[in-house]
């Protein structure tokens, strides 16, 4: 986007021009992502510590997770990242139809992820593997297994919460975009929402091997 095109655009009063606004918004989202990385990082730190302290128990408990559903969800989320990137791609070129179509597809994939996650949660509940609500596992090391599932639900729960927020953002983008508010020259919200969505994908990229894969061998 060229400077003279940007300068003609509306921008909020605190900025000198639209370019400054764009750069500030992008940087703002990156700083927010730094904060989010630390947020999940702390939980992952707790998980890694207990994984080292109770290796056998955690591997055994991890085998209770459904690897197929985890793999399907990983595929869905990576695909949704692709569609999100293509939505941004469309926005950058001012192709409104492409942008809206891919946004919709991303939302469908995100919803599918949450649906499968909900199914997994319900299944765990019926198996009595939800600490605090219904935990009836009585095998050896029941307490340490409960620790694994506590962290599993904390990690995936906060991740799912981020997905729900992301779906809300995408829905808002779709509504605004459908009214033609974004153009080749102004699509900052689409871009920075894309950053957020990709970040949520990255969290899952780490959660999947950490939670699902460690007890397979």
């Amino acid at each position, binding site marked *: 986007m060229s400077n003279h095109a940007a300068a003609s655009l509306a921008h909020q009063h*605190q900025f000198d021009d639209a370019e400054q606004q764009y750069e500030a918004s992008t940087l703002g989202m990156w700083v927010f992502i730094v*904060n*989010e990385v630390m*947020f999940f990082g702390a939980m992952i730190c707790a998980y890694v510590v*207990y994984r080292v*302290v109770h290796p056998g128990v955690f591997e055994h408990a991890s085998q209770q997770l459904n690897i197929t559903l985890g793999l399907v969800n990983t595929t869905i989320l990576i695909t949704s990242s692709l569609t999100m990137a293509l939505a941004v791609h469309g926005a950058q070129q001012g192709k409104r139809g492409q942008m809206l179509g891919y946004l919709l597809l991303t939302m469908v994939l995100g919803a599918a992820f949450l649906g499968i996650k909900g199914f997994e949660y319900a299944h765990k509940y019926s198996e009595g593997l939800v600490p605090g609500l219904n935990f009836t596992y009585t095998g050896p090391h029941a307490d340490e297994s409960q620790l694994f599932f*506590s*962290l599993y639900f904390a990690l995936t729960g906060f991740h799912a919460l981020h997905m729900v927020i992301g779906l809300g953002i995408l829905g808002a983008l779709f509504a605004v975009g459908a009214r033609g508010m974004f153009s080749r020259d102004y699509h900052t919200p689409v871009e920075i929402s894309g950053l957020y969505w990709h970040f949520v994908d990255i969290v899952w990229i780490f959660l999947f091997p950490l939670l699902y894969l460690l007890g397979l061998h």
Partner: protein
Amino acid sequence: MDAPETPKNYLTADYSIKSWLLTVDHKRIAVLYLVSITAMFLLGSAFAAGIRLELLTPRGDLFTSDTYNKLFTMHGIVMVFFFLIPSIPAVLGNFLVPIMIGARDLAFPKINLLSWYIYVIGATFAMFAMITGGVDTGWTFYTPYSSWVSHTNVTATAIGIFITGFSSILTGLNFIVTIHRMRAPGLTWFRMPLFIWAHYATSLVMVLGTPVIAITVALVGLERIFHLGIFNPQMGGDPILFQHLFWFYSHPAVYIMILPSMGVISELITCFSRKSIFGYSFVAISSLAIAFLGFIVWGHHMFTTGQSVYTGMIFSILSFAVAIPSAVKTFNWTATLYRGSLSFEAPMVYALCYLGLFTIGGLTGLFLATLGTDVHVHDTYFVVAHFHYIMVGGAILGYLGGLHFWWPKITGKMYPDGIARTAAIIVFIGFNLTFFPQFVLGYMGMPRRYHFYVDEFQVLNVLSTAGAGILGVGYLLPMFYFVWSLIYGKKAPANPWGATGLEWTTPSPPPTDNFAQTPVVTEDAYSYENLPVPTRASAV
């Protein structure tokens, strides 16, 4: 009130309540924060008064042990999370960061307003916990006491701190983006006021550290609600892991409190010495160094917990390293004073008191960073005295000094300088009388967090309580003369102190957009040598 022909400023732009509660002007949001944190400070001080009154006598005759536990817990929670952390960044930083870099507002004004509402909501949860019986875990929430044993309202407090954390994160995010992207033409990084450098470093700590405490208290809350074992040793958890995560934030949080204060002192010392600061770039970089090192020393809070001795050694050595950038600052301030044309208006008196108190606080920190010595004085009044020298002697004196320095800019009114100087001296005397005896008490072995003690300690405790009374007077005085100045104070000129910096080039109080036109910066910060010594407008 201003005459009609006076140009509107941010205070007179609109008088309705709505215009305040829905404002996106960083200056008005700073005032909102000023009012809210002052209220929290009064609350926290009331708890402190209760603690000191109880400790007047060796017996527990004023409160029960349970009540006393709640008093020191709520004193700590209110002061740390709801006063000290937002104090300078959210009030002075909010007001000054955009003005000092020549911007019209912060990068995200609505997020700035949101951060204030988040703060208020978080504080409401904490207040709710206090009204419905209080909390008794200590402000550190050590598990499993906080997650399994305590019957007090830990969950509501944890929710309050979780929520308030986001207000701090959003403030930090706003500052980082603003400082990167919105500096006036010509304002390069090494021309920025040191106040801005300090706030930049603080913001990094806020963004990197605060999410960790948020998730940690969230896990404690979940453990409490669902009876999980995340930090419970009986169920395979490890309480020391909680302390690692807690101090990963809460040690850097000390630098959230002290770094902005250091920024303020850099401004005050140069202005009232009429000299540019000695070693500008060293002082600037030392802020970043403190923020960086602050993240890798948290284990010195845990020397006696049973963490690995080798880890303790590493943490001990790294803790000593923090002394280097801190000393760089202190020595450079002192070198700035040397052969300066000093004058002693109230802000400068605060700055000089700060220098003395921060030095004592910092040096006693070295005792505590030493593994062997720490085992002796851990959990005694020595620690209490040490961190009050940093947090009160450092952070609050910096806050008060800054408030006195920029009060004419914020309100457009001068306060009586003589009584302000007296108040600063009273704070200094009261503070030392309160906390110096506690070093001795701690060294003699008086543990913290007990509401009765052996008779031998009474004399020093009486001194400490007497000092707290004097300190209270020193805190109350500014509240009176600041309010007085709003009504009767002389109108402040744009630059009452003859200081450098963009904030002094705009009228007091500034117009809503801060500057009539975007300023252009052509010289380094603190070029006092080029300025004539002003006739000070300090008299009422």
